[in-house]
């Protein structure tokens, strides 16, 4: 009887949809995950003997330091922007998110272009000042260089989440700490970092995932990491089996990290209390301190955005005539189109799953909320193969239908944009789901329950109560996904339909053949559009506050 009742109570369109979406979207990732248990072949032994140890060591080094530096930079900026006044503060509030608009591999190319032997730095020293600096000093194609690139272009994940969190904190918490005699540094390390732990870990885990599944930066930098092993097995040895096995291991590793994240996060906190806390008001510092603070913020902004942007702009001017063509309007349209559609679908799916997992306490719903991240945990090319296989299978199943409809082509879906968009959704679901999940976490269940007791069924409740209450989380998720898709490369390369190019693949077409200058125009456009969407998101949020 219990089972019957609880099934009845819990079976609604939400749960059915959630399970359906999850299965559908994650089937490519799951198909990879199960293959780690397959028997290894002799390539596996080779990889283990000659590559793995070193690769894992490199991977861990990069992940560890990128994680630490992103946290230090992201949290400190979040804190400074929230707590103190300084010139241009209103601009920096969103300006500090802008590095996210630059795809790390393009940032990597750009920085290498700046500091290499013919780059602006060394050539200026050489030609203007006659200084022949030791070129090794400017070498960034190494592990520290990769850590720099990842940190400076990914720290905004930590910054965004931590800032949003700190803005809701009660002023009295900070004031109390001050009264108890904490200096600014002590306050930062002993109060700010500990209380923002959850937010920090949330942001840092996005950074780490991004680093773990990156291939663009490390392959250009010639650094051998875990993903290199996957690609070597796959392409170097033509052994997809071993490659997938490695990807599966990576996926398990990510799962472990996320498990820790969840454990660290501990019990959920519902905190949309009615007793409104007095929000933190920024205070002004002494002139000297303000200068130092301003300098710090400016330096980060310059490194993460202004410098690479200006360099790309200069390259764009160099190659503009050669590269510019009417095709670019189509490229912009394509990029914006797939980004918007994917972001929209992802947010819709994330809302359905998020609402389901918060309203039911079963193990199933917990599991569903965890597996949304699967697609984000392995290199794009590997996921792409999973998606392709899945769609080819679908096409074969649908062949009867095609024949019946008198379409004389064996594959339709796997040559269409649907496959590509599906792949984006599968990959970036986690990016959209995280803020939605956090948003639901924050409002808790009592509003929903109140609405239902006032006679509104789940769907109406969702539209009238839940959605409006988490709209800024939804908008934030939408923006992040939009940018991610805009920057995305490996999936697009592998799953693009005929004659379908985006800004990202255009930039790649040049950069891949070391024509970095020619890649500048497409890169600038990506950055501009992503930057614009960050600005729009910020503007909407600011307007809401007033």
């Amino acid at each position: 009887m219990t089972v019957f009742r609880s099934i009845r109570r819990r079976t609604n369109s939400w749960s059915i949809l959630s399970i359906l979406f999850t299965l559908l979207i994650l089937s490519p990732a799951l198909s990879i995950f199960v293959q780690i248990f397959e028997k290894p072949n002799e390539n596996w032994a080779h990889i283990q003997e000659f590559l793995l140890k070193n690769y894992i060591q490199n991977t861990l080094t990069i992940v560890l330091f990128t994680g630490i530096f992103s946290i230090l930079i992201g949290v400190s900026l979040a804190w400074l922007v929230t707590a103190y006044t300084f010139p241009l503060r209103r601009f920096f509030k969103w300006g500090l998110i802008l590095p996210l608009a630059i795809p790390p591999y393009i940032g990597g190319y750009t920085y290498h272009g700046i500091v290499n032997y013919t780059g602006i730095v060394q050539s200026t020293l050489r030609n203007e000042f006659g200084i022949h600096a030791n070129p090794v000093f400017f070498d960034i194609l190494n592990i520290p260089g990769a850590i720099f690139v990842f940190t400076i272009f990914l720290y905004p994940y930590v910054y965004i989440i931590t800032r949003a969190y700190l803005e809701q904190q009660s002023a009295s918490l900070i004031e109390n700490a001050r009264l108890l005699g904490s200096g600014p540094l002590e306050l930062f390390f002993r109060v700010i970092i500990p209380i923002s732990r959850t937010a920090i870990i949330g942001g840092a885990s996005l950074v780490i995932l991004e680093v773990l599944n990156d291939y663009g930066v490390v392959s250009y930098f010639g650094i051998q990491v875990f993903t290199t092993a996957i690609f070597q097995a796959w392409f170097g040895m033509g052994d997809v089996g071993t490659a997938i096995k490695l990807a599966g291991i990576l996926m398990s590793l990510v799962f472990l990290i996320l498990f820790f994240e969840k454990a660290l996060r501990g019990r959920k906190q519902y905190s949309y209390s009615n007793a409104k806390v007095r929000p933190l008001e920024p205070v002004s510092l002494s002139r000297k301190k303000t200068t130092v603070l301003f300098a710090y913020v400016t330096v980060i902004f310059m490194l993460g955005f202004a410098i690479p942007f200006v360099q790309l702009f200069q390259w764009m001017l160099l190659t503009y005539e050669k590269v510019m063509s009417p095709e670019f309007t189509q490229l912009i349209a394509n990029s914006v189109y797939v980004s918007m559609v994917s972001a929209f679908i992802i947010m819709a799916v994330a809302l359905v799953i998020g609402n389901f997992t918060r309203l039911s306490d079963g193990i199933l719903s917990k599991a569903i909320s965890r597996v949304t991240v699967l697609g984000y945990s392995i290199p794009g090319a590997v996921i792409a193969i999973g998606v392709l296989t899945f769609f080819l299978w679908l096409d074969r199943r649908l062949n009867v239908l095609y024949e019946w409809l008198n379409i004389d082509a064996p594959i339709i879906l796997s040559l269409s944009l649907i496959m590509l968009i599906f792949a984006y959704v599968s990959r970036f679901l986690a990016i959209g789901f995280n803020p939605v999940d956090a948003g639901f976490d924050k409002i808790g269940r009592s509003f929903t329950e109140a609405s239902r007791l006032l006679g509104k069924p789940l769907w109406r409740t969702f539209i009238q109560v839940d959605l409006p209450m988490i709209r800024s989380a939804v908008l934030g998720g939408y923006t992040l996904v939009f940018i991610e898709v805009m920057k995305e490369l490996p999936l697009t390369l592998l799953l693009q339909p005929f004659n379908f190019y985006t800004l990202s693949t255009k930039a790649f077409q040049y950069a891949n053949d070391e024509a970095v200058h020619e890649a500048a125009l497409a890169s600038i456009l990506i950055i501009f559009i992503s930057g614009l969407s960050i600005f729009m998101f910020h503007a909407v949020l600011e307007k809401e506050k007033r």
Partner: protein
Amino acid sequence: MVMQLHDVTFTYRNAKEQTIRRVSMALEKGEIVTILGQSGSGKSTVLRLIAGLEVPEQGEMVIEERTIFDAKTFIQPEKRGVGMVFQDYALFPHMTVAGNIKFGLKKMKRTERDERLASVIELVGLTGFEKRYPHELSGGQQQRVALARAMAPNPSILLFDEPFSNLDADLQVKIRDELRTILKKTGITSIFVTHDQADARAIADRVIVMEKGSIIKTGTPALILS
């Protein structure tokens, strides 16, 4: 008899023991019943079961001759005609006072709705506050909006889960007297959870005492609380 609860048993997921053990009760029309008991004795859970926010393992419930749940039936919360005032009020922060109160008034004409709003808002003494947002109200005012919102759709039963716990002592006394007046005036049947004996004495027609998930005593306030 407005409502009857028979032999209801319930266990929370993860809980080792039954949270609610064979609880039965019956409410007369217009009666105000208070459930008293120590923290963790299962008071809130009983309310949630009545409201339909939890699914019982066993037992039956009937409201106004309609079976709400039994072995075969489970009516969803929104269809039960049960109102509830939450401990933290759960006022929708993105709606005005008027929006909150009108929220549950469906299938009514616009004019009817406005009339209903005006009458309940007058009842709780908040006329003139319609356009405010919840965070622009004091704690006592928020509490009264929550009451108005729950009463507006004319529920068969109104449930209160420690509605005064967010208020200071003076306000608590004032509001609880007001509340009794309002409830009696409108004749709404209500269940009232508290662990404050003074509350129970002031407001209840009948008191039910719970311990470890079971009802151990029931009777008039004078009898139980002496």
